[in-house]
């Protein structure tokens, strides 16, 4: 009888170029290498230094997202880059892609987007693949049953040159989420609950497979949100076995074959699922019904509470420091916190369903006067779809800014940032000190929650909304 294997085992074994030994790591083949402007320049320098070409340019795909402005060109036709250096970084990637023959989705591409949004949209992300990018949220692509993880710039150079990486096989963990999510509870809430349960280092050294009925019933965009946040529990990668949901999402995408050839592919994909008797190094089971709409209060994504609950009392110096930074007292009600900025976007929650969810909360309502709200689609194609559906008008009519695609306030390196001391409710993935700007205080939440906070001007759930709006004399949808 063949040894039962997990999804991860199957992917790992299929990509071993040279096995691990006592003294050397395995050499693993990489099917898809995603590239953006921030972590690639020194990788390309390695090629020039050694006088070698990109081994498989057709397995390499580049985009502009991190340092790019989200405001349109000015009257002079110039894009408003935050610094010359940021512009130079973009030009450097453009030059590198031209020199080494790599497909780049530049400003003029209708597919340009945040790297982890664009890959799946194009169908470049496929089940069974190994995928890397110089970006920790590469774990997003695991939603398709790919083994996908972030690498450093030195390794970007290695993959460009050899299409391979040196890796010791990580340990495996299965996180089972059974049951059903309650009304108004999203994949973002699920992820924040898992991170709180595991701790922000609980996944260190592991590849996580998400399984269970609650995971199976998520649509692809929600699965991407869940896998995206895997790195926030310290795990290398998160993955979900491909199924009919995966197949339907990818059907007809640009980088995939059509009809007969596609059906043949999908048969292979379905065989990737974890075998019944496969063994994991660690297994965790949670019930979706226990999860509620959640928000972070601290300076790491593991520090979160159900929105109606108070801020926990700190139990050690690190937690005290976090609360001091955030300006919270232990025991304080979350809903007391006034919100200054709301950001909807990022590779975690910048997809069309996220914008639809936020828009459905904002329809016929207004963003509170003191709140600045930014809505940044994850890609050009999402922007177009949203505009077709009229979502941008719902946002702008409510008083939010509708921007061009990019990472924007998720990493705040393009000029979209939160001022010192201000509180932002953000649909992104990190609430570290200064992540959205020096001194900025970030509360992570779902798009629905973020929109509700924008309307009330303080921390709130969607279910708190109708009453609050009536009080404020606002029209209710």
């Amino acid at each position, binding site marked *: 009888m063949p040894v039962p294997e997990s999804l991860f085992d199957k992917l790992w074994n299929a990509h071993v170029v040279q096995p691990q030994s006592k003294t050397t790591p395995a050499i693993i083949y990489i099917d898809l290498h995603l590239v953006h402007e*921030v972590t690639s320049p020194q990788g390309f320098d390695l090629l020039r230094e050694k006088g070698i070409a990109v081994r498989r340019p057709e397995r390499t795909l580049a985009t502009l997202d991190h340092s790019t402005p989200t405001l349109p060109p000015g009257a002079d036709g110039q894009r408003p880059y935050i610094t010359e250096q940021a512009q130079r970084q973009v030009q450097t990637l453009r030059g590198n892609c031209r020199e080494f023959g790599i497909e780049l989705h530049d400003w003029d591409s209708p597919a340009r987007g945040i790297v982890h949004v664009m890959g799946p949209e194009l169908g470049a992300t496929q089940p069974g693949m190994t995928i890397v990018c110089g970006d920790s949220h*590469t774990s997003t692509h695991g939603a398709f049953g790919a083994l996908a993880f972030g690498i450093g710039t030195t390794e970007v150079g290695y993959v460009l*040159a*050899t299409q391979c990486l040196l890796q010791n096989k990580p340990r495996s963990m299965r996180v089972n989420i059974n049951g059903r999510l309650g009304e108004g509870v999203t994949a973002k809430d699920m992820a924040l609950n898992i991170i709180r349960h595991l701790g922000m280092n609980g996944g260190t050294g592991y590849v996580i497979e998400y399984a269970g009925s609650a995971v199976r019933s998520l649509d692809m965009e929600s699965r991407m949100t869940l896998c995206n946040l895997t790195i926030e529990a310290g795990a290398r990668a998160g993955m979900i076995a491909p199924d009919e949901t995966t197949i339907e999402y990818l059907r007809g995408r640009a980088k995939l074959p059509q009809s007969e050839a596609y059906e043949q592919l999908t048969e292979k994909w379905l065989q990737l699922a974890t075998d019944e008797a496969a063994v994991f190094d660690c297994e965790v089971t949670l019930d979706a019904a226990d999860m509620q709409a959640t928000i972070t209060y601290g300076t*790491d994504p593991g520090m979160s509470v159900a929105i109606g609950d108070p801020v926990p009392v700190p139990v050690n110096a690190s937690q005290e420091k976090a609360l001091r930074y955030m300006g919270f007292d232990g025991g304080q009600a979350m809903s007391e916190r006034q919100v200054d900025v709301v950001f909807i976007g990022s590779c975690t929650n910048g997809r069309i369903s996220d914008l639809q969810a936020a828009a459905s909360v904002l329809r016929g309502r207004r963003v509170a006067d003191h709140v600045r709200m930014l809505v940044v689609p994850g890609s050009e194609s999402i922007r177009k779809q949203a505009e077709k559906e009229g979502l941008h008008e719902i946002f702008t009519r409510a008083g939010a800014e509708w921007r061009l695609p990019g990472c924007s306030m998720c990493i705040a390196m393009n000029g979209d940032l939160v001022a010192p001391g201000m509180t932002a409710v953000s649909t992104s993935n990190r609430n570290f000190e200064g992540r959205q700007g*020096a001194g900025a205080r970030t509360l992570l939440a779902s798009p629905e929650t973020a929109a509700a906070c924008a309307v009330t001007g303080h921390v709130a759930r969607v279910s708190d909304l109708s009453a609050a709006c009536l009080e404020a004399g606002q029209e209710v949808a």
Partner: protein
Amino acid sequence: MRVFTKTTGPVLVLEQENIDTDQIIPARFLTATSFDGIGEHAFADWRLDAAGEPISGHKLNEARARLSPILVAGHNFGCGSSREHAPHALLGFGFRVVISSQIADIFKNNSQNVGLLPVEIEPQQHARLLQLDGEGITVDLEQCMVTVRATDGAEQCWAFTIDPFARHCLLRGLDRFDFLYQAEDAIQAYEERP
């Protein structure tokens, strides 16, 4: 890559847990296309004010900080983004070794690739090290040993484990790239598989 065999010197302790890569090097310094000079921005938001001037009284601004080759940090150091700018910034600041009871995966990997030695040590020993701010210790990669001097003058040696290949490369200053590049035949054979 620089050879690392052994370092003796005072430790700088940052006891906070979960020090993430956004603290080590804030994102606004990532637009550079080279790692040169990045050490000047290490922990920028902790030790510099809005005008970029050192905040007096911050431990990282004391003269000894730049002279400490060994950083001892709280649990789960280096979590967060994959930016290799983080270990480069620490190297540029003057550190050669970072010790914690847990070091995040990608950061650990990146450190090994750029010549910063990441050392993970048992919680009890880690707790001891957190008390030794400013004291001299030795980190020996050849022996995989951390040596501290107890108050009575006796030496205590604590073993640590590290990936054998990373150790091999750091001890000899070898670039892991050469190992990969020499596997060309195996890579080609893999690509030609049906």
